[in-house]
């Protein structure tokens, strides 16, 4: 079949069942945008390319399918960089297509030329540059294959403009072969047996679940294993939602802003099963003081994560679902149902003690009560995204995630401005469920121009701004660790978010009480246009508990 490079790309994308692309055109990608018109693929026009990647990322995390975004060369491509790095840190399958100057211009510092391959190599699973039309089908196939298999991650495909225009014979049926690509899905049985041995002898087992459980869709297996072991389950930020947070064995978040009961119990465990995670510094805090007496089993699909951040006793390289089910199958015959009941009692007692201390029903307009109210109003399958900072940690602590892929947040990179475009992407993937961005005023301002996209493309989401008029997390650190010397954190009362929303054609409301919030929030969920709810809160509000930097998990500052 003879096709232009641009038409060939559209054909290759339809082979991959791509239904939506988030992007913004420019000079060096115009042939592709022209071909897009006849492709039947929906294009969501952003107002800044950073939002296009975050949308593709939100789409991917909500659906489990790869998200696709597109930008022109030079500044279009470099505007993608933050979003690509974000997807890389959180192992999200995003595929970015960029226009490039024509082949004969590459290296000449041509207008809008940027070395996007050089720039993105360390923040992608792979960056491809196609040099001929014939390479397009195979490269697209390889890009989707690499992005979605093993430990997923972003892939970039750079296409020079003359390649987009050139016509050549192309073949779509050639298989992809990447010699150096190792898929470590199947766990080694000897390693699995070592893990089983440790767990079958454990008196106080603990499961720490990470994003790998979500990627592998291993929720049911995880729940069954936890129940079989009577093991409490804590999660990393990426793992939130992998285990229902209303389950008696659920402890919620572990780490710097982990729940007190989760941080205490993980340190009391005699065997820790850590699944699908990389022991980030925000999860384990001080490495030397992390579970010193605990036997640690680490399992991850990426072998380079084993012993990268902390030494472990047993490691199993493999897909989280396969590892969990392998362990459970072996343990079923070895364990009695009522084993570890002393540990179960300890877990329940500590949960009750901590919760009794924190559970004073408040009717004030404070983040914990707002988030608990949202949980009561939203259906279980509603999707929540967050921005980064205090809003994110409040959401992680006080908004219970009850089903998988319903809590979407920027974990590794901590990208302010992620939540709103990610919410739009999630809504495109799951139009049937409500999608809410839990925002701070600082973060929302970073990508607020996505209001234009959400309104003009009719992708309605709800934005709840916990508006403290400061860069809250930085202000909190300045309060605790810099003697309250506030430096560059005060944002003031600008903009007026209600008017800002209205200026974009969205709805905007400000609420003054929790009751008012409830009714405004409920009605926003039923609207077919985006609503921004401005919720004024105190600038002095802290996110607690917190493990101050440089401390072990047990040194917790409590409310």
């Amino acid at each position, binding site marked *: 079949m003879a096709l232009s490079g641009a038409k060939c790309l559209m054909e290759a994308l339809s082979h991959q069942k791509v239904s939506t692309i988030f992007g913004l055109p420019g000079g060096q990608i115009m042939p592709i945008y022209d071909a897009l018109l006849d492709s039947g693929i929906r294009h969501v026009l952003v107002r800044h390319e950073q939002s296009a990647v975050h949308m593709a990322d939100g789409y991917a995390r909500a659906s489990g399918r790869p998200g696709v975004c597109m930008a022109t060369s030079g500044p279009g491509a470099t505007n993608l960089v933050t979003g690509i790095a974000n997807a890389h840190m959180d192992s999200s399958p995003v595929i970015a297509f960029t226009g490039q100057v024509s082949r004969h211009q590459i290296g000449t510092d041509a207008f809008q030329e940027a070395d996007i*391959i*050089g720039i993105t*190599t*360390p923040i992608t*699973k*792979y960056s491809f*540059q196609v040099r001929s039309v014939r390479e397009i089908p195979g490269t697209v196939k390889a890009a989707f294959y*690499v992005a979605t298999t093993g430990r997923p991650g972003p892939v970039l495909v750079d296409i020079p403009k003359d390649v987009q225009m050139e016509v050549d014979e192309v073949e779509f049926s050639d298989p992809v072969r*990447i*010699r*150096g*690509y*190792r898929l470590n899905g199947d766990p080694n049985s000897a390693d699995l047996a070592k893990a089983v041995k440790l767990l079958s002898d454990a008196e106080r087992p603990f499961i720490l679940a990470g994003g790998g459980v979500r990627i592998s869709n291993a929720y049911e297996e995880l729940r069954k294993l936890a129940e079989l072991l009577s093991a409490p389950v804590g999660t990393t930020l990426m793992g939130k939602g992998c285990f229902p947070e209303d389950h008696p064995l659920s402890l919620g978040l572990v780490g710097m802003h982990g729940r007190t009961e989760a941080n205490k119990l993980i340190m009391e465990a005699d065997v820790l099963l850590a699944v699908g995670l990389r022991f980030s510094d925000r999860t384990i805090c001080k490495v030397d003081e992390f579970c010193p007496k605990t036997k640690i089993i680490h399992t991850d699909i*990426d*072998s*380079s994560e*084993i*012993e*990268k951040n902390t030494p472990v006793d047993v490691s199993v390289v493999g897909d989280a679902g396969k590892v969990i089910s392998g362990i459970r199958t072996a343990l079923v015959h070895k364990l009695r149902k009522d084993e570890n009941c002393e540990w179960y009692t300890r877990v329940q007692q500590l949960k009750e003690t901590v919760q009794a201390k924190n559970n004073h029903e408040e009717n004030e307009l404070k983040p914990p009560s707002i988030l608990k109210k949202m949980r009561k109003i939203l259906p279980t399958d509603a999707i929540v995204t967050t921005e980064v900072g205090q809003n994110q940690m409040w959401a992680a602590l006080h908004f219970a995630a009850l089903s998988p892929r319903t809590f979407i947040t920027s974990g590794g990179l901590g990208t302010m401005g992620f939540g709103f475009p990610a919410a739009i992407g999630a809504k495109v993937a799951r139009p049937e469920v409500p999608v809410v961005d839990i925002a701070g005023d600082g973060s929302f301002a970073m990508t607020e121009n996505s209001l234009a996209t959400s309104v003009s493309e009719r992708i309605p989401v709800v934005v709840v701004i916990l508006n403290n008029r400061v860069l809250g997390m930085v202000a909190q650190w300045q309060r605790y660790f810099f003697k309250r010397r506030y430096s560059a954190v005060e944002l003031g009362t600008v903009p007026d978010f209600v008017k800002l929303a209205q200026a974009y054609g969205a709805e905007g409301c400000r609420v003054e009480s929790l009751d008012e919030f409830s009714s405004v929030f409920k009605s926003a969920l039923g609207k077919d246009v985006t609503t921004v709810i401005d919720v004024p809160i105190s600038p002095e509000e802290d996110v607690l508990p917190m493990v101050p930097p440089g401390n072990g998990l047990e040194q917790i500052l409590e409310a």
Partner: protein
Amino acid sequence: MSERTFIVGTLVSHKPGVLHKVANMFRRRNFNIESISVGPTDERDLARMTMTLTGNEWMAKQLVKQLEKLLDVVATTVLDEKNSVLRELALIKVAAADSKARSAIIDWTNIFRGQVIDASPESLVIEITGTPDKIDAFIELARSVGLKEIARTGVTALERGSDTIDSEKDVT
């Protein structure tokens, strides 16, 4: 953990940009590579890189795992120094203004089994092949009469016996 020198051999796709991807990973992950040599192999699509780095056991393991994670890397192994042959080639330009200096250099070159490959009234260019230690020793001697310039290839190495880098074995 104690530090020592590791020699890592790796087979990579032989195409543009691969050296950048490998070198970029070293920088990104904070590995300090002392030498790197690259060349084609018997397979048209593959090139072989040999790297040396100083570090502990943990670093070497991480380096191998990070290399294996790269899509352009087909096989990687840490070469056991006792069980490998390693060589480096150096071209050394030495000042040889008088006959005394000139004959000393030629003597040393013979002792080191090197070759004089270029001569001019003021200088000689010597080719030395051997382990890095041997080349270091020759350079020290050359320095005493007047070292002008050095070009070294970096170490390249192969395991002794019939094992090859891509034969099935646990490389970590």
